[in-house]
């Protein structure tokens, strides 16, 4: 089963790191991806540019509008994601615990919902 691990942290904590600390964390993240890949848990994943680079897009009445900034202003910002393959939630949680930024921020683990073209009438079925 697929789980998306969304990595959040307070960017100001990261900004306060020395270059050596920041580089060490990045190396740890690369090692984490490598380990997940070797063990067959890694499907995809990327780190993101800081939240100032975010743009939020909405379409209402067929008109698109874009606004500066993230979808929600929160204390911790979305910093990256991992798409993981795991046996069940317990394994997904265990994998998430080893994502290095979990020590500074939080990792939200969400099971992926496979879209079934034959399913109709479910109130919040994704329409995209």
């Amino acid at each position, binding site marked *: 089963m697929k789980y998306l691990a969304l990595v959040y942290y307070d960017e100001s904590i990261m900004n306060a790191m020395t270059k050596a600390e920041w580089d060490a964390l990045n190396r740890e993240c690369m090692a984490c991806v490598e380990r997940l890949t070797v063990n067959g848990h890694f499907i995809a994943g990327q780190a993101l540019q800081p939240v100032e680079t975010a743009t939020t897009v909405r379409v209402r009445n067929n008109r698109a509008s874009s606004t500066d900034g993230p979808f929600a202003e929160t204390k911790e910002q979305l910093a990256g994601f991992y798409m993981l393959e795991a046996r069940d939630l*317990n394994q997904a949680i265990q994998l998430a615990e080893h994502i290095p930024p979990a020590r500074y921020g939080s990792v939200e683990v969400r099971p992926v919902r496979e879209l079934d073209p*034959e399913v109709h009438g479910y109130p919040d079925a994704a329409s995209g």
Partner: protein
Amino acid sequence: MHEKLSDIYQTESRRVFATLVRLLGDFDLAEEALQDAFAAALAQWPKDGIPANPRAWLVSAGRFKAIDQIRRRMRFDSTVESIAVLSEGHHTPDSIDDDALIVDDQLRLIFTCCHPSLSREARVALTLREVCGLATEEIARAYLVPPSTLAQRIVRAKAKIRDARIPYEVPGKDQLPERLDVVLQVIYLVFNEGYSAFQGEQLVRHELATEAIRLTRLLFGLMPTAEVEGLLALMLLHDARKSARINAQGELVRLEDQDRHLWNQHQIKEGVALVLHALASREFGIYTLQAAIAAVHSESPSAEDTDWDQIVGLYDALLIRMPTPVVELNRAVAVAMRDGPEAGLQLVNAILNQGELAEYHLAHAAKADLCQRLGRTSDARSAYQTAIDYVTQGPERRFLERQIAALSTD
């Protein structure tokens, strides 16, 4: 025969259910299969006699009925997924009466219902419903929520178990300590809800305390660790004082004013033995330490003859593992008993100044009591008044009002 069957239902139904969840991979299907299995037993056992191993018989009947049911549904509705039960080959028939596996099934059920990814309310509701077998209406009554709300809570929790794929397993070694903490927390919440119940349907809520003790006994049987033992002891020792805590008028009686002859000595004896055993393991934690404090009280003939020095020492140890202002407050009260009200008052004032307990009625009540003992009547009165402003439970409010009234007549 009906009586025997009802006994078997009492002792076996939740165990059978736990095994059926493993075999069928679905809570609702397992519940249905359980009811079908008992219906089959009711029809067959009076004729054929009770089987040598009723539990294995019931599991096997339930599983058979469920498979039958799934096949029938599939015939009518081709979209029904072929549930694991039809394709599974790894559950050999032997696994049905393997006792070790069945014991594990009960643990699996407990750990699944108390999974940290479920909300606290959901864990409590699901544990009472699935592990203890309480009816949804009973749980709703005990928690003073509409049955529909509670039913929703359980439905959502089961949906999350299915959709997020919360596994039916006892967590591995590295996750176990954290996960066991959550289980103990759920049980203690259930106990407290029953123990501190004064409003609503008291009787129903007191059953929650009994249910929590029963559940901990079950858990202790399956997983005899120090903290499970400590929690069991803590609940037994508190519960032993049940009939002395409330007087004939339904009013709250303070520990120091309780008639200690009303305490359940049999339960105290059991609780104390458990505490001593848990302490000796040296792997104890917060529940064992709280139980040890309760044990010292339980064995003291009166408040004055209590070993307050030992109680302060136990609070010191508890503070290291549980550094909360409420523990500090309790320690301060014990210090007041050991070193006198002035020493206690200094500590209580310092705790109140930290701010976190500024709206906690018991902190102000403790201050009021100490002021009263020091003869500072007006300070006592204003502290009691503040406590009354923050209290929510009727009997506690009336207790505080009686204290104020007593001050005025001094």
